[in-house]
């Protein structure tokens, strides 16, 4: 029943190298109706500790991809998911297995900063007092020291996003899915948050999948950038980011960065034009 029809990743690999994959998706498709197809034959694999960024034209199925990996939606029959080297029969088995952070912070207004941060581990069954103690130690790292008893409506947009990120980090799963976490922030705050996220990621060594609309953000953060095609979504381009870490802010002006950015922009431009084409490119 474990048939690999994936051509990008031969199934004849040894156990050892298959082990090194945290998540692999093969032939992932998702259609909402016979005419609406969000994903079509998407292949993807992620290694532990990797920082993967995903870009693509609007409505290309990025969020659908995330929802499936988070266990919130079921893919079409025939799609294959392997997580932690075990086959996943139903996506819903992944509920509670990955740390998911949606676009909006979705903080609960009746909970303080600290209680919002511990929401996920509290749901896991940890005692509130213990959870709070763990979270208190983490506050300074997230730039929230002294704010533990504030309520979300007293915080700036950047701080709210850090609370949401802290909630995601505290959940402590191997894979973190971040869906445009900095999309709503102003440019300056966003740059600060990107640098800060890299610091935190380097310290905690977690695997991150990160959706963004911003090509520079994708390059600055990622080990690999995945460009998705217009709907129905597939991986169009897998671009390894050959930039050293730790990355300084001025890296965005280096020739190598510019070269990679050009390559990405060309690929995205091609796909964006497709989704604006007058005749429907309806292939499914």
């Amino acid at each position, binding site marked *: 029943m474990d048939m690999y029809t994936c051509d990008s990743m031969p199934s004849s690999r040894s156990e050892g190298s298959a082990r090194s994959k945290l998540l692999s998706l093969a032939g992932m498709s998702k259609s909402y109706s016979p005419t609406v197809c969000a994903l079509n034959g998407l292949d993807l694999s992620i290694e532990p500790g990797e920082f993967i960024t995903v870009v693509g034209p609007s409505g290309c199925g990025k969020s659908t991809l995330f*929802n499936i990996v*988070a*266990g*919130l939606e079921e893919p079409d029959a025939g799609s294959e998911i392997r997580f932690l080297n075990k086959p996943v029969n139903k996506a819903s088995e992944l*509920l*509670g*297995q*990955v740390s*998911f952070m*949606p676009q*909006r912070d*979705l903080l*609960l*207004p*009746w909970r303080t900063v600290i209680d919002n941060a511990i*929401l*996920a581990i509290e*749901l*896991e069954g940890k005692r509130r007092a213990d959870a709070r103690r763990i979270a208190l130690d983490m506050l300074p790292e997230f730039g929230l020291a002294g704010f533990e008893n504030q*309520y979300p*409506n007293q915080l700036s947009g950047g701080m709210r996003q850090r609370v949401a990120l802290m909630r995601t980090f505290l*959940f402590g799963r191997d894979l973190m899915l971040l869906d445009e976490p900095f999309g709503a922030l102003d440019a300056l705050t966003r740059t600060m948050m990107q640098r800060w996220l890299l610091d935190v990621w380097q310290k905690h060594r977690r695997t991150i999948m990160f959706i963004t609309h911003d090509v520079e953000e994708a390059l600055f953060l990622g080990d690999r950038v995945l460009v998705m095609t217009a709907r129905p979504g597939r991986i169009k381009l897998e671009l390894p980011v050959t930039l050293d870490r730790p990355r300084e802010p001025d890296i965005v002006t280096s020739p190598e960065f510019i070269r990679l950015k050009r390559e990405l922009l060309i690929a995205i431009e091609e796909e964006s034009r497709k989704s604006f084409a007058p005749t429907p490119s309806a292939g499914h």
Partner: protein
Amino acid sequence: MKIHQWLGHTFTLERRRAAFGLIAVALIWEGLVRFLDVPAYVMPTMSAVLETMLAQRQVLASNAWTTVIEALAGFFMGSAIGVMVAVFVVSIPLVRRFVLPALMTINSVPVVAYAPLVLLWFGTGIESKIALVTLAVGFTVMLHAISGLDQVDPKAVALLRSFGADKAAILWRLKLPTAAPLIATGMRVATVRSVIIAIVTEMLGSASGLGWTIYQGVLQIDFVQVWSGIFAASAVSLIFFSLIAALERHIIFWKS
């Protein structure tokens, strides 16, 4: 806290104005009735009403107590049932489509119209009043709770599911708190309603309570008693409303 600070805090400008207005009305009432020499069965003097209230304070208090018990019991039962039915209606789409319209039909008839039947079924004791107050409060709270539960963000539900939360946890940690502000509004509105329903039902059949006091006063052409009943009912209603409103401000702190 210094005493003048405490006074300033307790007697805000708004409250001082309200008190001033009440005193003004009382003085005008007293003055007009005396000046025009209105007979007591049309309109007694304010001082006569207050005197009677003081003299009969024990009887009045015991009747007020009956009404308070009926209103409170119905209020809390109705609120609990209203929230539970709302959760049920919202979580099962089929129920919403078929049961909700039926409930709305029942609700569109004024609750008091059911009073004679309820008196027949539950007798003239406090049970019939509690039943009617429960019905009235239950509908008010249920409708508010349904619109509150409808405000729950599906994205937030998805987030909690991704954390592995089950249905009960989502209800408890997300849905009910989200709906709480509107549930509280419904309960605040229902306070006054519950006192009204209790009193009206007492008028239709009972042996005690403020409604009974007022009704007996009318039968005996004792308008001083009627007015003392009205005053006591107003006080009960006002205190009840203020308490629930204060609780609401305290519990639903994030909405202010």
